Structures are given as structure tokens and as C-alpha cells.
């Protein structure tokens, strides 16, 4: 491998990286002289791994120069250690576990995702929203109120403190957030609201609901149509596992399992009626249908038959 054509997954020798580090230090102290510049060019061309090392070096320089120096210095220079870390959680606004997603901001004020896509965004007021697969939300903020219009799909909302009220709107009615974390899902003829922190006031389009009866509190969920509020049920945090790319089933009818997974794929999942009331449990990946199906089949000894885009699950 001395001909400079080493495969890319080979580690770059430490000695080469050390040379690149020396060049970086030289550049740090001031602009390179023309002779040094030529020497660097020569060094880069000498071997493929030199150039690879230099690509990394340039990427590092780009990253460092993209940072606001003072803020970055204060952040990176923090005392590290257990005590400092422990105090940290108090200041966090619930964003931490999402870190493996790139944060993306939509164009303008509207956000949408296609099938099998998710999107996380931080709005101008600090409110955080996460869109599930095949969803759309319009964000309408003005000086008097903050309105999130769920046009389709499902959105998870963690509100930021702000003097303006935060409302969410669906086809069936309006929701007023009372300092809170909640998710809203648009179903065929209903809205499903689940509250995880604080409380949300529900106002179905045409229903008369006695004051006080339309407040959904943390740990509760409800379905409502334009005319009716359903019964209040228990909301589970595991329903939000889609934010992490997972479906957590806890004694879930297999038909519902298939229905849930279909939100993340263009394939049609069908269960053999003979499966009856079979219930399943476990954690399944929503972005890897073959694996999810394999896990289901393995655990419950089922057969999975593919015909084009149709998947049939049976014993």
C-alpha cells in the first residue's frame, strides 16, 4: 500500500496526521509565506493519505471558524465533572434526547414531512415541535397569539413560556395549551390529543362542553370530533417513541400494530383474520419495516408473505 491508493477505510497513519497538525499550527500563527504555501501543496500531492488528512484538517478549520468565538469559548471551557452536569438538567427545555437528529428548520413558517420522514423544529418563540411521518403544520404567530394549524398527520409540541397564548387547530376544533407538552394527531374524523405535562383546554367546533370538563391534564388523552368529546383515557409517554424512530407496543392488538406501522411505509400490511385478537408487545423500529416484521414473526411464530407492495401476516 505504498503507491498512494490505499482504500478509504484504512486508518491514516499517526505520523501523517501529526504532519497535518503541524501545518495547522503554522497557519494559526499567521498567513503562510508563499514558499510555505508551495511546500504545503507539495506535501498534499505527495500521497493520497496526505490529502485525506488535509481534508479533515480543513473541515476542522471550517467548523471552528463557524463558531461565535466568545460564546463558543465560554461553552467549551466549562468546568466538566459530575456536579456541574447534575445541576444542568434544571435549565434544559426538554430538547436533549433528540440530539441524534439534525435540527432542521422549515422554509417560511410551514413544516411538512412525507411518508417515513420526521422533522424537529424550534420555532421563533422557543417552542419545539416534532412532526411525525406524513404530517403538515402551519405556524401562524402574531403579536396577540401563537397558532399551530395541524393540516394532517401528527405533531408533538413542547411549548415555550410566552405572554401570548398558544393554540393548536385541527379539523375538529381548537386546543389551548396551558404551559405544556402534548401531541395532537389528526385521524379520519377525529382528533386525538395526549397531554404529557401541564394541561390543554379542548374546544370542539360545535360541541357544548361544560367549563372545566374540557381540560385535559398531564397523563390523559382524549379523542374528539366536531360534536363530541370522547372519554378521557390514560396517555402513555411510550406513545411518543416515534420521535426516536420506535414503536412501543404493550399488549397491542396485532391489527393495530400493522395499522400503526403502515403510517411509515407505502406498503400495505394485512393481518389474516384467523389471527383474531392476538396481542403483541415489544419495541419495534418504524424506519425498518423488514426488521420490524422479522421481529414480530420471530417472537410470535408468524409467517410474513410479500406480494409486490402487499404484506400478509398469518400463522
Amino acid at each position: 500500500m505504498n503507491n498512494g491508493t490505499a482504500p478509504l477505510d484504512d486508518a491514516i497513519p499517526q505520523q501523517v496526521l501529526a504532519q497535518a497538525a503541524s501545518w495547522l499550527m503554522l497557519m494559526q500563527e499567521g498567513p503562510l509565506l508563499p514558499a510555505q504555501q508551495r511546500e504545503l501543496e507539495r506535501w498534499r500531492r505527495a500521497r493520497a493519505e496526505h490529502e485525506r488528512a488535509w481534508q479533515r484538517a480543513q473541515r476542522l478549520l471550517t467548523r471552528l471558524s463557524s463558531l461565535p468565538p466568545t460564546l463558543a469559548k465560554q461553552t467549551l471551557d466549562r468546568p466538566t465533572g459530575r456536579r456541574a452536569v447534575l445541576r444542568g438538567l434544571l435549565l434544559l427545555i426538554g430538547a436533549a434526547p433528540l440530539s441524534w437528529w439534525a435540527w432542521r428548520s422549515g422554509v417560511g413558517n410551514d413544516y411538512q414531512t412525507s411518508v417515513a420522514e420526521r422533522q424537529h423544529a424550534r420555532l421563533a418563540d422557543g417552542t419545539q415541535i416534532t412532526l411525525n411521518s406524513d404530517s403538515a403544520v402551519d405556524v401562524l404567530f402574531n403579536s396577540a397569539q401563537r397558532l399551530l394549524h395541524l393540516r394532517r398527520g401528527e405533531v408533538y409540541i413542547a411549548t415555550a413560556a410566552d405572554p401570548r397564548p398558544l393554540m393548536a387547530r385541527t379539523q375538529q376544533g381548537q386546543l389551548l395549551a396551558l404551559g405544556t407538552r402534548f401531541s395532537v394527531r389528526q385521524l379520519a374524523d377525529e382528533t386525538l390529543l395526549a397531554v404529557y405535562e401541564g394541561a390543554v383546554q379542548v374546544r370542539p367546533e360545535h360541541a357544548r362542553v361544560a367549563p372545566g370538563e374540557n381540560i385535559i391534564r398531564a397523563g390523559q388523552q382524549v379523542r374528539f370530533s366536531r360534536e363530541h368529546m370522547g372519554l378521557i383515557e390514560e396517555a402513555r409517554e411510550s406513545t411518543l417513541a416515534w420521535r426516536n424512530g420506535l414503536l412501543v407496543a404493550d399488549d397491542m392488538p396485532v391489527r393495530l400494530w400493522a395499522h400503526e406501522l403502515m403510517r411509515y411505509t407505502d406498503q400495505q400490511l394485512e393481518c389474516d383474520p384467523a389471527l383474531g385478537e392476538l396481542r403483541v408487545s415489544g419495541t419495534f423500529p418504524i424506519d425498518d419495516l423488514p426488521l420490524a416484521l422479522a421481529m414480530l414473526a420471530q417472537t410470535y411464530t408468524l409467517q410474513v408473505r410479500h406480494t409486490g407492495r402487499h404484506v400478509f401476516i398469518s400463522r
Partner: protein
Amino acid sequence: MNAPFSPPNSTEPCSVETLYIENHAWLRNWLAYRLRSWGRGVADDLAHDIFLRVLTSREGARVEPIRQPRAYLTRIANCVLVSWRRRQSLERAWLEALQLLPEPEHPSPELQSVILETLHEIDTLLDTLRPRVRQAFLMATLDGMKQKDIAVALNIALPTVKKYIHEAYLACLTQMPDE
């Protein structure tokens, strides 16, 4: 719930599924104990993170069967836990630094997220360095200080400053992936 363990040399793709089903509850408890002051939700989120890592790390072509599932999970869980804690302290330091700036000078929320990602990346690269080395490196790269000024500020010899900064650059370059 009684999926059999795969035999050690099996090439069947069932080891990941078995791992999930048999160890999910155990892992959640393991994490909940270590994160007991932070609530169950955090432990659940991290458990998801860990299984996600197991999934992605086993997508490659050379997949070996998992012989000791709990030891394997504990190893990944520890990495996830350490990096999560580092991230927590980074975000806290960021918010504190931000508070020192007047509001109009704050970067936009979108830009802040981008900056935080970059900071997290750099922070991870610098993680193994001794505090002094890290300090000298940050003075050179972020404060734009000359090496001789760093020597004065830290009260160390110039060759030591050079050694420190070189060590830090080398650590970064070593850990960075090729793009």
C-alpha cells in the same frame, strides 16, 4: 416472550430481535437506577437511543452474533450515558453563556441549533484531553491568541504550549471521520 436465544454461531438475523425482547425491561431498569434523580422518561428515551444504536451498528455486512447480550448492552449503554451527560453540561454552559449577552445579540434559534451541533462535535473531539491542553487549544483557535501570549497567560514555557496545541489538533484529526 419466550423467543429462544440464537445459537452462538447462527447467521440468522434473530439476535437483535431477541436482544430487544428479552432485555428491554432490564435495560430500562438499569438506566432508571443510574438516572434516578432525572425521572423515568429520560431513562426510557435513552433506552430507545441505545436500541437504535444496536440496530444501526448491526446493519453492516460483518455482523457477529451477540454472545453476552447484557454485557454488550451495558457497554453501549455506558457510551450513550456518558455522551448524554456531556451533552447536558454543554447545553447548560451554552445557555449560561447566552445569558451574559444582551438579547438582540443572540443568534437566531435556527442558528443556535447549528452552533450547538458543532459545539457538541468539537466537545466530543476534545473530550480525552487534559484540561490544560484543552485550554491552550481553545485560546489558540477561538481567542486567536499567539502561542507566546498563551505561554504567558498559562504561565508555561513556549515549547509546552506548542506541544499542547499540537496534541489537541492531532486528537481532533485522529477522531474525525473522512467525509
